[in-house]
């Protein structure tokens, strides 16, 4: 039963992060939503390792990958925020909509 509890926690974190990534206008707040979703992957990976196949290291390796993805996402997100703020003085996605053209 504990596996299901851990996965429910992961599902809740993923849903909250998805809400943030979809609803927020600020680039940094969108990054926070994505980080919550990666956090859910960490919980699910660690729980899968412990409750399903602890004799194999796959779950732990997945957690390491997720932690690295989180660092890469944050660094790239801040770099993009800096670039777009410098170029147009905006930090909101809606104000950067003309990037589509």
């Amino acid at each position, binding site marked *: 039963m504990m596996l299901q509890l851990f996965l429910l926690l992961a599902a809740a974190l993923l849903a909250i992060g998805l809400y943030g990534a979809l609803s927020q206008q600020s680039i940094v707040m969108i990054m*926070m939503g994505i980080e919550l979703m990666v956090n859910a992957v960490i919980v699910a990976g660690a729980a899968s390792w412990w409750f399903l196949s602890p004799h194999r290291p796959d779950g732990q390796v997945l957690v390491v990958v997720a932690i690295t993805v989180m660092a890469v996402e944050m660094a790239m997100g801040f*770099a993009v925020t800096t670039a777009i703020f410098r170029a147009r003085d905006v930090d909101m996605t809606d104000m950067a909509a003309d990037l589509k053209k």
Partner: protein
Amino acid sequence: MQLVVFVVCAVGAVAAGAAVFWVDSMARATFALLASFLFVAVDVLLLDLAYLGVLIILMMIMEMVVMAVFMIMYMMNPAGLMPMSMVHNRRGSLAIAVGTFLVLAAGILLIHWPTRRGAPPAEPTRQLGEALMGSKMLVMMVLGLALFATMVATVVLAQHRGRYHRYGDELDRRAPDDPIRGGVGR
């Protein structure tokens, strides 16, 4: 006892995660996200993953402090002195998020999960280290390359004027093209 700690931390992680998009201050949102990460790290520690749990705690403290600095630099209302709203399509986003949670929860509760195969190793950290330096070496190499590419890309994106701005696309300009005269080589 473990169940009590898990439930307290799980509820705390979800509540802090929800608070990120609910509070009126950028600084508070950042530290709410940090609290969510720390609660999750305690739950990871409950699974005997001492190294990864401590790694999450240390990394997230630093990451959120850096994020707080960026939030205060770029965004409005860092102190929460007035209500702020920077959302679009709140209702649609909420519906998608709730629907996603319900589908995932139904799958989690209805699927017949397999029973555990094998026993946990005596030292999970050693198992991880040997995997990353052995059978999962390719994963470690790709992560290293990705981190290196990130360093290069972030510097290129974040710098205001680089050598190509100053010395031309072919780097063949004799004197740098700077907006203010003077400095090295002038």
